């Protein structure tokens, strides 16, 4: 087989298994002129099983019907062959008479029915001709008060049959037929009124049973074999399916225990979450109520203030003076900032005029080291003024203390500190300050220190904004 599967005009083609997932092209006969060239070379694929029993598959009529169908598909002609079946369907003349009482009208809604069929079909036992003959002769010779209705007889016989069938369980044995006393005892509830008349019927019933060698008056379907030899009796049908007990092993036990535990845990968690949610909502509600009270009180205060002509401040308005002060401060700060910016810019320009920029950008800022970002700066109160006004010299300000907290192993919260030692030194003796300074000067990298003491308001970050490269990126 030296066939190359990629050669498109190859005429012989080995039919192989079709990939179910592979999309197949669709062609109609009129679209392909050269299909015959290809299809003649086809090797017939093995026929797929039809699902009919092998032996039956070969039956003449089925084969004829199948070939007729094939013929129709091949030639397009109308060829039909049907399988003959026994023809004995006749329309019943007395149908109308039999079913004359049946009337049906389509209900609007779909029919829903879930009752037991027995409640709609009346007494399951139906009197036979023999029964009707017997009741007639019986009623003729009996006193008026003991006369039987047909329906009564039907129910009594039904009950007798039911009990007997239950006792016999598909066996035919007249010796184990229940006696009259046993039978009478079963007439309770709705059929209790019939108990009195059972003894009239019982002899007739027993006689019938004996005549049938113990067999039921109304033939019943055998649902279990009478004995072990009849296991395969085809008349035995609708056997009960025995339940297969689920095998219990230690593993399955352990597994179910685990599952139960898990379920319990999950439920506990869910309850917890819900309880917390409830708490949260309650708090939120209290908060909102408080807010509302606060607002209401404020409003009353305001109103009262206005009525009494009292100053706004009492009425709860933010002090305007202070605000102005703040805004003044911030504006002055801004001015200073812009001054610093322009100064820095001019400095840069100056530098640039001397130097040839060989790097991408000389003023590329140092990147902050990640851990350092987590330090927050702590300002001792007496140094507050220094921080904003004095020129920024990192080495001059070792006394700043910085902290960061982190969570260590086992959930311990650790606080790292910086600049604590120098601060302490500085305060203890002024003489020592120089040595202290020099001591701490090289303890950390320069930028480190500067970074630690810088915050968003420092001019360093402003400088960064001026940076060309950085600017572009923004």
């Amino acid at each position, binding site marked *: 087989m030296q066939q190359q599967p990629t050669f498109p005009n190859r005429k012989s083609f080995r039919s192989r298994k079709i990939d179910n997932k592979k999309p197949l092209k669709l062609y109609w006969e009129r679209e392909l002129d050269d299909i015959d060239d290809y299809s003649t070379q086809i090797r017939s694929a093995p026929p797929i099983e039809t699902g009919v029993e092998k032996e039956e598959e070969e*039956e003449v009529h089925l084969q004829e019907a199948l070939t007729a169908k094939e013929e129709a598909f091949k030639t397009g002609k109308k060829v039909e062959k049907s399988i003959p079946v026994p023809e004995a369907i006749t329309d019943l003349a007395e149908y109308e008479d039999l079913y004359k009482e049946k009337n049906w009208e389509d209900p609007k809604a779909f029919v829903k029915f879930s009752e037991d069929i027995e409640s709609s079909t009346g007494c399951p036992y139906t009197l036979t001709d023999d029964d009707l003959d017997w009741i007639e002769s019986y009623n003729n010779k009996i006193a008026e008060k003991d006369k039987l209705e047909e329906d009564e007889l039907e129910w009594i016989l039904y009950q007798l049959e039911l009990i007997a069938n239950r006792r016999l369980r598909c066996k035919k044995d007249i010796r184990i037929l229940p006696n009259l006393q046993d039978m009478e005892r079963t007439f309770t509830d709705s059929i209790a009124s019939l108990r009195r008349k059972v003894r009239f019927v019982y002899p007739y019933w027993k006689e019938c049973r004996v005549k049938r060698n113990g067999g039921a008056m109304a033939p019943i379907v055998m649902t279990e074999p009478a004995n072990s030899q009849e296991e395969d009796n085809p008349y035995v049908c609708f056997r009960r399916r025995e339940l297969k007990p689920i095998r219990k092993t230690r593993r399955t036990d352990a597994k179910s225990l685990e599952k139960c535990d898990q379920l319990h845990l999950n439920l506990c968690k869910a309850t917890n979450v819900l309880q917390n949610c409830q708490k949260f909502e309650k708090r939120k509600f209290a908060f909102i109520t408080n807010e509302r009270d606060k607002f209401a009180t404020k409003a009353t205060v305001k109103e009262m203030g206005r009525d009494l002509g009292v100053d706004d401040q009492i009425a709860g308005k933010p002090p305007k003076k202070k605000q102005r002060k703040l805004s003044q401060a911030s504006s002055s700060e801004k001015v200073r900032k812009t001054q610093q910016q322009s100064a820095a810019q001019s400095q840069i320009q100056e530098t640039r005029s001397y130097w040839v920029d060989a790097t991408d950008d000389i003023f590329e800022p140092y990147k902050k080291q990640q851990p350092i970002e987590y330090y927050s700066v702590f300002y001792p109160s007496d140094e507050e003024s220094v921080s904003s006004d004095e020129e920024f010299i990192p080495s001059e300000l070792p006394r700043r203390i910085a902290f960061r907290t982190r969570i260590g192993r086992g959930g311990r919260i650790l606080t790292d500190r910086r600049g604590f030692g120098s601060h302490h030194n500085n305060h203890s003796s002024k003489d020592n300050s120089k040595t202290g300074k020099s001591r701490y000067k090289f303890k950390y990298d320069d930028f480190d220190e500067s970074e630690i003491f810088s915050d968003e308001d420092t001019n360093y970050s402003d400088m960064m904004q001026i940076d060309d490269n950085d600017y572009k990126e923004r």
Partner: protein
Amino acid sequence: MSELYSPATPPYTLPTPTSTFITSNNIYVGCQLYVDIKKDGQGEREYRKAQVLTIREANRSSRNNIVSNDENNNDDFQCEYYVHYLEYNKRLDEWVTIDRIDCSRQIEPPNATPSVSNGATPPPCTMASPYLGSPLSIGSVTPSPSPAPHLTREQELEKLRHHGAMTNSQSNIVKVKNIEKIQIGRYIVSPWYFSPYPEEFCDEPMIYICEYCLSYFAKERQLRRHLKKCKLLHPPGNEIYRDYDPNISFFEVDGHHQKTYCRNLCLLSKLFLDHKTLYYDVDPFLFYILCVRDKKGCHIVGHFSKEKDSQEGHNLACILTLPQYQRQGYGRLLISFSYELSKVEGKIGTPEKPLSDLGLLSYRSYWSETIIDLLLEMHSNKEEISIHDISETTKIDPKDILQTLQSLGALKPYRAQQIIFLSDSVLAAHKRAKKKNLVSIDEALLHWTPPRFTQSQLKYAY
């Protein structure tokens, strides 16, 4: 051996030297002879080879009068012979008298069939005859050749215990129809196969069946009495589909809840289904009953059963259109409905095997029409389609799709690829078939949510 014998053809050569000419004395159970397949006996005779399955005394249709081989030599009474025409379906098996048998031919022993090469001893039957010693025993009948590997009885029962309603192996007793005739609704119908109605009914010339609750009676008077009591006018379940043109409805009945009705239904349908088994009870099945509605009520037309929880992806177990309603498109309707249910469930389904001959034909035509319809649609959109896609859209099993496409001659190689190719004649046949479909399922009329069962509710199935 499949050829029909007519007097014009040359005499049949003796297959074995032991063959003898036929008289009523030497016909025995299991022998093969030629029988006229025409019932009326008019016109030219049409002989066909048949096998005698059992013998009984004529004019007394009681099974108690079946004669054994030893008594057969007695000429005092005329005998009837139950014959199976070779290579014909069992539903055509019938009782014949001697005058329909071609007596000019030799009688042939059971093993004379050329295809049976097992020799003189009949192959061991997979199912032991339960009636050994009883006059009904037909244990000596050689079963027709069955070279296919058969499950043993135990294996099959084990299989059935878990799932399914179809059987491959059958005991000999069920090879003989046991019910003469049934009357149901306005029809009198001849059964096709054995059905385990209580044995006492086999003596009756007719079984009277209530059209609504399917109760059965031996006498018409009983049926009349019952019809006065019976208030049922529809199958005892929920209506899940209703169409007003034509007036049809589908009812869903749970085998567990309506045991009496479903058992009656099974007994009835077994009369027309060969491979249906009633070995186990009806609990694990749902029954979908197709009815025609008129002023008298909902008349059962057919039904299909479906496992509540099929392990093998069956969306249908048994399907039957009652003979009086056959050839009117109802079988197709039932099949179509079963796939409609599968679409709602979102499951791909296939019917339980074995299929009957009629079942195969119905399924083939449903499959091919459905698939061609889809292909036509895809083709007009210039799309490609895989077998898998067809299956997802129609819920037909890929195997069934391949089978159908193959029967249509639609799978062809073209320029080194597989294509789906529909010839003009296939399209013409499809058009014709579409015209023939009088009834079809409209999915908008289906009001159904798949019933769900807990594991414990399904336990009886295992």
